[in-house]
């Protein structure tokens, strides 16, 4: 390829992005120690609650969407065909 590989595409950058990402995740959880929790509803005061909740909520939403897609997904020319006939 005549074009030089973009620095964001180098395997080394990718490696450090994942490393940095995980370090950041760990830091945000540890940051829970920085303040006195004032939970609105008890459980949201648990150490790392928002991290776990955000992760699990997203997994649940993706799986639900996947399930719904099995029923409701159609080829993207679905309505075009309906118009032609």
């Amino acid at each position, binding site marked *: 390829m005549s074009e030089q590989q973009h620095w964001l595409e180098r395997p080394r950058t990718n490696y450090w992005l994942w490393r940095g990402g995980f370090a950041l995740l760990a830091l945000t959880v540890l940051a829970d120690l920085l303040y006195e929790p004032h939970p609105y509803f008890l459980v949201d005061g648990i150490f790392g609650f928002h991290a776990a909740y955000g992760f699990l909520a997203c997994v649940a939403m993706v799986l639900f969407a996947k399930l719904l*897609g099995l029923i409701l997904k159609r080829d993207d020319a679905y309505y075009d065909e309906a118009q032609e006939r």
Partner: protein
Amino acid sequence: MPLPPGLILILGAVVVAALHGRARQVAALGFPLLTLWAVWLVPDGAVLRLDFLDYTLTPLEGGRLSRLFATIFAIMAFSGNLFALNQPNRVEMPAAFVYSGGAVGVCFAGDLITVFVFWEIMAVASTVVLWAAGSENAYRASMRYVLMHLFGGMLFMAGLVGYVAETGSVDFVAMRPESPPTWLILAGFLVNAGAPPFSAWLPDAYPEGSYSGTVFLSAFTTKTAVYVLLRGFPGAEVLIPIGLYMIFYGIVYALLENDMRRILAYSICNQVGFMVVGVGLGSEMAVNGAAAHAFTHIIYKALLLMSAGSVLLMTGGRRKCTDLGGLFKSMPYTAAMGIIGAMAISSFPLTSGFISKSMISQGAADAHLAFVWFALAAASAGVFLHAGIKFPWFVFFQRDSGLRPPEPPLNMKLAMGFFAVLCIGLGVWPEPLYAILPYPVDYVPYTVSHVVTMLQLLLFSGLAFFLLLPLMQRTLTITLDTDWFYRGLSKWAARALSSRIKASYEQVWSGFEAGVDRLIAGLFRHHGPHGILARTWPTGSMVLWAAALLAASMMIYYFR
């Protein structure tokens, strides 16, 4: 007396339609600025009163909420026009002028009849904006769109008539949805907000607009609906479940979607859902939150759609995630603008979404509604998932599509830059926005716990995205929605019916033809050259017709 700000834009449409070249560009940017100036000249309370039939209309009435929404609508008209300056279609911008003028008009309407008039002006003008995209798909979508909005307008009108009969007043004041007329008015408002079961009109129509038209469309209709809900139905509890439905509907459908602008359209439903929940909560905190979120949302959603519109324009109309990817290399500026919009919609700290959306959650916490609060927290993570990462990732990164489109023209870059500055500016310095909210603000967004918990929600949502990436790969599909009932089912029914009707029509027609043939044959037999009646034909028929005419003239004379 101050000028009605909405009329400035509506009259400006005529000027812009007539002008060409540089003068047109000056007018395109000047009228929205003039409007913004006029908005801030309208004092509180009724300014203009008109007698209409038995009612007193208040076409111009100032207030904090009116000023807030009219301000952002004028800013949006300015930036949208800047983005659309080199749109070759000459109909779109004048239509957008009328459309934004209608939205500003609704904001300053002191009575329901004026609201209705501007409401319908918006419906027609937005249809023209959509239709101006010029494609067959856009035309079809615009027809479905206008039918849906006329239906919503009809619900509103029916409710309005009942409401006036019940109360004897047309004043637009806070109502409770406790009688059929108020239910109808609420339903009419909710159709425009994109609420179930009519959410589907929004992702059906908006992605079919032109690269610049969709930017206008995203801003006015749904946010005007939020405005009238805030003014008409604050604290209506039924809005809480409706809003929550919209939030999760938007997330789930956006996760399944392949068209980049339809992803963003679903996310409008999602974001308006947050505002609808805020209206339903109804406390000062929640109402402030919903109003502030409408303000910030218009900016970052327009920014996202501008970056998507730039991609659409510069790639020659590519809009599917499966066709895009790797565009950050040749469009780094557009990618950066899209990412700022994506951060703001995800309400990252230091962006505008953070300082507005969190007030709605705070409203739920203050009201001790645990279910609502947890749902909103999950949804905040979900926003990052479906719009915050998904949009920039599939458009600008993922695998390299090999496309190397250049950056868009300067005016489009400036429009994006302006809104990106506002996204970050309001996030860093929210006080100017807080100062113009409907109620005094007693809220500090930047506390350690709030920043940390939000970052946890968002970053772990990001982790879920990249871990589940194999499940998120885009496919060339659409997802059926409630619009199937009028796009799929009705077509199927029409086709089934039409074949039956055709068959019976042919049967009736052939029977009719045979009857006519028999009649002609009979006439020929009796009146033809060899028929028995032909012998007395000239005098006989003359006497008959003279008698008929005489009878007719006598009848006419008698009845006069």
